[in-house]
């Protein structure tokens, strides 16, 4: 299985916004909401006096959003991408609060949370994520980091990488910056509203109870096979064709 990764050379960025609009159009993100961004920071090293740092979900290896989700609607996939199951997402916002990068938003029409998934919906078309493909400065490199011949693997092997991480809430981001970047410690501390934290405890309890019941059913099943509970166990259950069953 590929392991997707993105590397960003922020020194090339001039904040044209192509990555933002391209992403919105590819992924039906309403204008005004964003899966990605460009940070602007004062920086005397640049002629403009400002440096730009493009970003998006850092596809962290220790994602606090995953920990925060009460319904297990978000998880880190084996392909290196942190994904969301919109069927399970209840839009509670716990992951939004937990993400130190503010990489998630609640979709105003769907009510569920949305974030960068490296344009998973169009990957089968053989095209790079929108922000990679449309960037006029070729700031971003994307690919399978597990393939040593890929550009992304080669850059990772040959260049110094910089990680942008919250000092208070480290998350092991997999997205990295090539060489130096403007500011590295801007991500905030993760936060989790207390009702949602409580919900996580309840949800965990419910999960354990569910597992216990499942264990009971399985145990009963084996018991029935090994030690049938009565001699009528082989009796037939008659089911009329109408579909209206009779009690045995």
């Amino acid at each position, binding site marked *: 299985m590929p392991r997707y990764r993105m590397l960003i050379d922020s020194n090339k960025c001039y904040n044209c916004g192509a990555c933002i609009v391209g992403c919105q159009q590819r992924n039906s993100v309403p204008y005004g909401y964003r899966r990605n961004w460009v940070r602007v920071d004062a920086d005397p090293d640049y002629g403009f*006096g400002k440096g730009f740092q493009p970003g998006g979900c850092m596809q962290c290896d220790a994602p606090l959003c995953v920990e925060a989700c009460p319904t297990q609607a978000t998880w880190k*996939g084996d392909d290196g991408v942190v994904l969301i*199951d919109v069927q399970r997402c209840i839009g509670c916002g716990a992951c939004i609060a937990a993400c130190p990068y503010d990489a998630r938003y609640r979709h105003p029409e769907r009510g569920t949370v949305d974030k960068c998934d490296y344009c998973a919906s169009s990957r089968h078309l053989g095209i790079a994520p*929108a922000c990679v493909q449309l960037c006029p400065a070729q700031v971003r490199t994307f690919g399978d980091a597990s393939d040593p011949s890929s550009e992304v693997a080669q850059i990772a092997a040959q260049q110094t990488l910089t990680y942008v991480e919250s000092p208070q809430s480290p998350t092991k981001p997999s997205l990295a910056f090539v060489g130096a970047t403007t500011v590295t410690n801007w991500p905030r501390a993760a936060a989790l509203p207390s009702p949602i934290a409580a919900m996580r405890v309840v949800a965990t309890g419910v999960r354990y109870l569910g597992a216990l019941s499942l264990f009971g059913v399985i145990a009963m099943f084996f018991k029935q096979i090994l030690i049938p509970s009565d001699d009528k166990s082989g009796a037939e259950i008659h089911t009329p064709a109408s579909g209206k069953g009779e009690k045995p």
Partner: protein
Amino acid sequence: MSSKVSRRTFMKAGAAAVGALTCLRPLSPALGANSATPGIDYERVHGYCPFCQTRCTFTAFKKNGKAEFLVGKDGNRWTAGGMCPKGMSFLELADSPHRLTRPMLKTASGWQNISYDEAIALTVEKLQEARRRHGNEIARHLALTAPLWDCRESELAALITMRFAGCINIMPPGEVCISTASSTLNTLLGSGNSTTTVDEVENAELLVLWGANISETYPPYTRWLEKAKAKGVRIILLDCRRTRTSNFVDRQLRIAPGTDGALALGFVNQIIQDGSYDKAYVAENTNNFNALVKDASPWTLAQVAAATDLAEEDIIRFYRELMNSRRTMMWLGGSLSRYSNGMATVRAIIAMQVLCNQIMGSGKGLLTMESGKPEGEKEFVDHICGRAPAGVNFRRLRIAMDRNEIDVLFLNSSYRRYPDCDGLKETLKKVNFVIHRGFFKTEELEVAHLFVPATFTLESQGSHYGAEKQVVWRDKCQNAPGDCVPDWQFYRDIGRRLEPEKYPRFETPSELATLFSNTLPDWKGITVDRLRKSPSGLVGPIPAINGPELLGCIFRDGKFRTPDGKFDFLLKAVGPIIWTPPKGAPKDKDGDPKNFPLTFIQGKILTQWQQTITNFAASLAQFSNGRYVQVHPETASQCGVKHGETAYLVTAFGKVEARIEASEDITPGVVFTPSHFLGTSPYPATNSPPINSILPNYWDRISAQFNGLGCMLQPMKG
């Protein structure tokens, strides 16, 4: 019939189901992940952005009859697949709820929808009526303003129709901004385009971005700055503002707006004085050198420093870098043309390059993004319609309109692109019949009698051209809504009714493009088939089928494209190169430094295109926050205005409200505001009265130019 299931079987099946569910559970997120229908394929349709001369090409991914998203063409050698947000806004604009999709006729009771056929019939009737009234004098009574928002075939169809209608007054699209550079290049060098292709910057030693704010105005071309830098090319930017482009240069000279000509003449003077110009080259390839000696002689170092506000040591260093460079390229920004002294400036810069033998050869020459139009259009129209004299420019047309002399005006794009647009609005009301082609409710509806909705780029096929003289092709991706029709169809349908026998027969732009390439020898190799296959477009001329594209310097025989093959320092029709401050500037004789001590400049910003379409895009409005003026904090404080507050930007001709953006990115004493806003935008972020309502109707010899004007900032209260 009844089915029978034993209890044991039931237990087994139940357990299997539970087991299966248990096994499947870890996979379920992947199945229900946040993805659009995986496996669905899309139809792919070629396209290009019709806005700037970068002319980005893309593939539109189409599903259910509509483009869903765009992907830049990686194989485009000029852009490498990049685009800017403006080009992408078409996806949204095509579906905009604000779009007008029916022809409308202005009546005593307001606008009324009419059919497309009625609109065509009415237009033809108005043209025929004018012909009956004016007979052979008809040419003086009809006009068309460009640009058309469509393709080259639309331009051709419109030009042919206008000729058949008797109209020769075609207002060029760049007449309010960049025509000066293009016309000057054309007159002096014999080509109104860049003298080479942009890839040559990698072969230069020195690249001067002369007012060329590449990263802001032609974003994908920033890659050429990076490529040049990677090859060790030194890049110097001349601009009074620090912008995104500043991040990609080695050094910036923050020259006072509109004083570039003085800096250029100072260099000319210096190398003539110290004899370091290429004497042999000048002797062999130029005329009237002595005229240049005279023109440049007043420009001593002290004079240049006084005019440009640059320190003498910075000027000396710049001149030295120019003299030491064996291969220098100058990238002429559109901003140079936007002052009334633009022609003198462009002439002086070209003279610098000629004196140093820096025009011809690899890594040398002049770049401009302001043209790129391949030759042949006029010949083609002449071939079909017969030769015709040139028409008037907009300055004269306005006078004619004021005298009630214009019967029919085809108003494409906006009148607000011309200065003194409020005065112009009243003038336009004197035209008997104004047909406006557009997309949205804009101020043009106030002066138009008939509105016929046009199409966006995805809705019709056709070709276009870019800064490298490359011709690109697009196919039709989706149907236009309502009665919106492309320009080629609109003008063809009028032309066919006017001259059914003579009007060329074509049903699609492809047929017209084929007729064009079959007619003009230099276009033989630029076929629609070949264009379709080329992600970069084809750089003309290509006289042979399957012939090669010719990149690099256009002067392949080492001669200028002038009648005698030489460069003339004296432009007889214009006179000597006399540099004076821009008209109406605080330092100009017509200026009023007491009341208007600040220097006004306006221009494009990255996320908007001119004063029309893009203001209606939510995708672009998200980057804006209403009209603003950028001003240095010292200047703001001198004017009594503060960062973030709303104030008046005032000229001798009016005032507009604007938010103050105090920033050291602009030199003290200068005020910048973007040019794109319009008063009917549905988004507050892009809604503001047009800037041209407070700018005077100043012209150089070629086009309307008003940057450099004196202005003032006034607090709202008191």
